[in-house]
Structures are given as structure tokens and as C-alpha cells.
């Protein structure tokens, strides 16, 4: 039973983080209310439009970046599970992997692909 204590700690931490953010924004953040804000949130698109309307191609661009940088989790996860067995060597390997990814991110960012209005 005692090994599940980690899971419990994880749960509490996650709940505290999420709850804390909600509470903090409602306390600190400015509060303005206008019509657009009260609509259901659809990732920036207006929810009630003609179905023939095309999405901006920028959505695809962001989605592609997400997919590419997200897929790294596939490799990070087994590495995390075997972290102790792989030791320093595995750590360095992973850091090299992440550096290469970071260079990709720097490239994407500096080339202006992350700017919405360009």
C-alpha cells in the first residue's frame, strides 16, 4: 500500500497547482466582461459561423509544431522510467537529444513561425 503514497502526493500536487492557478487568477487578474468573452471557447474561432468557412492555415502550422515537439515525449517517457539504470550516460544522451530539439525550436522561433500576425 505504501508505494501508492507517491501517487497520492502527485494527485494532491496536481490538484493544488491547478486549483492554485484558478484562485490566483481570480484574485490578481483584471476582470472585464464583454460579449465575445462570454461565448463558449473554441480556440479563437467564433463558434457560430457558416460551416463553409475555412480555417486559417495558421492553425495547421501551430498544430504541426505541436505534433513535432510533442512526439519527443515518446522517447522521454522510457528514458524517465529507466533513468536510474541508464545513469549519467543516459542523462547526457538525453540532454544532447533535447539540445537538438531546442535548436529546432530556436530556429522556428527566430524565423518568425510562432508569430500569429506576420
Amino acid at each position, binding site marked *: 500500500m505504501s508505494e501508492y503514497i507517491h501517487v497520492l502526493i502527485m494527485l494532491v500536487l496536481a490538484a493544488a497547482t491547478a486549483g492554485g492557478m484558478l484562485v490566483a487568477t481570480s484574485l490578481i487578474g483584471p476582470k472585464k466582461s464583454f460579449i465575445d468573452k462570454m461565448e463558449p471557447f473554441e480556440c479563437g474561432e467564433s463558434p457560430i459561423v457558416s460551416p463553409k468557412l475555412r480555417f486559417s492555415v495558421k492553425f495547421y502550422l501551430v498544430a504541426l509544431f505541436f505534433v513535432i515537439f510533442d512526439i519527443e515525449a515518446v522517447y522521454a517517457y522510457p528514458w524517465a522510467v529507466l533513468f536510474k539504470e541508464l545513469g549519467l550516460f543516459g542523462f547526457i544522451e538525453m540532454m544532447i537529444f533535447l539540445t*537538438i530539439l531546442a535548436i529546432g525550436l530556436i530556429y522556428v522561433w527566430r*524565423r518568425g513561425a510562432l508569430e500569429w500576425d506576420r
Partner: protein
Amino acid sequence: MEQVMSTINLSAIYPEIILTCFSLLILLMQSFSTPRFKEYYGYVSLVGVLAALAFVVMEPSSFFAQTVVYSFNDMWVVDNYARFFKLIFLLGTGLTILISMKYLEDEAMQYGEYFALILFATIGMMIMASAGELITLFLGLELMSLSLYVLAGYTRVRMVSNEAALKYFILGSFATGFLLYGIALIYGSTGTTSIRAVAASVGKYGLYSPGLVMGMAMLVVAFGFKAALVPFHMWTPDVYEGAPAPITAFMSAGPKAAAFAAFARVFMEGLPALQMEWTWLIWIMAALTMTIGNVIALVQDNIKRMLAYSSIAHAGYVLVAFLAAGELGISSVLYYLLTYTFMNIGAFAIITALSGRGEPRVFVRDYQGLGFQHPFAAVAMSLFLFSLAGIPPTGGFMGKFYIFSAAVKEGYIGLAVIGVVNSVVSVYYYLRVTVAMYMEEPSSVREAEAAAPIFSPALVIAIFISAYGVLSLGLFPSSYVAIVKQSFLALQ
């Protein structure tokens, strides 16, 4: 833990590490670019190629030491066979970079991505040559292919370039699907993806697993696509025509050689026990590839398209040598691919110089009278075309000579006859360009001024290197043959 560490030999992948560092450096340069950098991307990537070349020859031991180094749990093999292919790839890459710089300046597209992608593609090819495992092979192949899809569509304002990229992408990924399914079936039948272990398993348990034969057939389809063998060649002419001229040169040399490198590695090292099954298949493909490539090339007016069909035909000649196998066969594959790299990139260097901004001048009629206006370009072009046609004293002649003598020695006399007949046919369309250059007047429509080739020092260097290669391979073959024999892999 100990086991993980002990099988890793980093010196076996120094060339690849160096190229990766250089390509990332170029990406970073482009990220923090100032207009002043744009002249230097090409030179930086050339330095990377030269450094990698040095490490291919020296690490992990000297080329002539004949050692075979396995690393990363047999996923990585460095033998002289792999190293010789890496030399071919790096040579092709270096020449491509030299002919690209002026081209990009003319097209006003001097971006670092171009060179970074060329280096990525080269790394992919080198991984293919050294793969001791089907997974590694797949990753190398995809790294190469994905970079090439983008490069084919690099001049993105040109519709033909976009079209080339789309066709290449669709058919290339289709072939990838077949490769993967083939690997999956082989994995299912043998329980392993290591090429050596596959060979051991097939040798031990025999061949008549339907999955294994299906898997082998699918691999033939996949490699056939990548090396542009008939009947899987239909993407080649459109892609070669639409892609920017230096990229066409690059694609016809390196990636094709890489496909053959992996093809030979998998079939001769992994599936020799199935030789009875694949011999007749490859026999038919070789005959078809040579014949169809040459016959369709006869009627082409666009030189890029003509050389696309000619590259299909040349893949057929290589396939003949591949089939002959043995020491002579594999050595002549290597010899021919080296020669082909020199002569084809040389011819494309001239095409690049002549094509003009947006590549309007790529037709045979644009070469009329070139011999009088620009003797240097015409002489060089004739040399490369003679070599492609297999006329002595060029490297192309010696290459074909070795291939057909290997075929005869191994008893493939029918195939050798088909090959020789095809070489004779091919002389017609290569000489057609030479005749246009020396015996025809410039057409009145075209102003002589407009056809002035644009030579830069880098382009001239590339042409000289290619011409030197073609001539020395033709005149002094014995020293090259010695190196090629060193590279022969005891594939059985």
C-alpha cells in the same frame, strides 16, 4: 549497464556527428541571420563535408586496415563497403554544394535551410550505408527522403517544383509504407530486425515461410522505388524535371547510390538464403530498367528529363552488376556508382550554368551552337556525355566494361547482351546534344547573348573535379580498382 556501455563505440559515428553539428550550426546561423551571412552557408557546409570525409577515411581505423567495427549492439556497421559508399555520398554532396551556390544567388534564394537539408540528406544516406539493423536503415532512409522532398520543392514560387515535391512525397511515402510492411513481415517470420540475425535465422530454419517471401517482395518494391527501377520509376522524370537543377544532380547521384547500398546490404548479407527467389525477379527488373529507360530517353527534348530517363537506364546497368554479385560484381557496382557521381553531376553542373534564372533554357535546342560560343562549356559537356554513353577513354566505358565482364563471368550472358545493345542505343541521345552543340547553328529565336552560361569559380571547380574524376577513372582504372576491391564486403 556494463553491457550498454561496452557496445558503444562513438568513433564509429564521428563523420555523422560532425555533419550533424555543421547542419545545426547552419540552422543557427540562419536563425540569427544577417544578410552578410548568406554568402557563407555554402562554405560552412563544404568545410563540414571535408571534415566528415577525413573522418570517414581515418576513423575508427585506417581505410586500408580492413577492419569491421560493430557498434551500438550491432545496429551500426563500419566496414570498407559502408565507407566507400560514404565517400561517394560526400563527394556528391560536395560537388552539389559547389554548383548550388551560384544557382541560389541567381534565384535570390540563398537560405541556410538549403544547405542544412542537403547535409541532413547526406547524414541519412550515410546511416543507410552503415545500418546493421532494419530499424536504423529505415531511419536513415526517412531522414534522406524527407530532406529530399523539401529540396525538390525548394524553388517554391515555381509550380513545377511544387508539383515535383508533391509527386515525390506521395510516391516516396507510399514506398516507405511497403518498406515498413516488408520489414514487419520479416520481423514476424524471424523474430529479429538485425540484418545478421535475420541471415542466421533464415539459414537455420529454412525459407518457406510465406511471410518471409512476401516481406522480401515488399522490400524489392520499396528499394525499387528509391533507386528508380522499372516498373517503379514513374516518379523519376517528373521529379527530376521539376526539382531545381543542382538538386536533380544531387538526387541522381547520392540517394540512388544509398538505395543500392542498403539494397545490397539487406539482400546479400541478410537474405542470401533466398537468392533463388530474388535472382529471377532482379533479372527481369534489370532488363526492363535498362531497356525502358533508354528507349524513352530517345524522344526527350528536355535535357533534365532526358537525363532522368538516362539515370533510370544507368540504375539498370548497376542492377546487372548487383545480380552478378561476388567480388567482381560488387566491386563493379561501387566503381560504376563512383563514376556515375562524377559524370552525372558534371553534366548537371553545365546544365545549371546554362539554365538561367527560373530554368527556361533546359532544352536540346538551347544547346545549338554552344561549341562556338562557349567552347569550355561545350567541351566539358561533351566529355560528360561521352562518359555517360560509355565511350572510351572515359570512366563510363571502364565502368560498363567491368559490369558486363562480371555479368558474363557469372553466367548472365543474356543480360550482358541486353546491356550492351542498350549502351549502343543510348549513344544516340547523348550524341544528339553534342551534335547540337557543334554542328547546328543557334536557332534564330534565341539570342546568342541569352545563352551565356553563368560560371562562378565554385562551378568551374566542380566541373574540373568531375572532369578529372571521369578521365582518371577511364585512363588509370587500376588504382581505383584496388580501392574498390578493398571495399568489397564479404557479403556471403
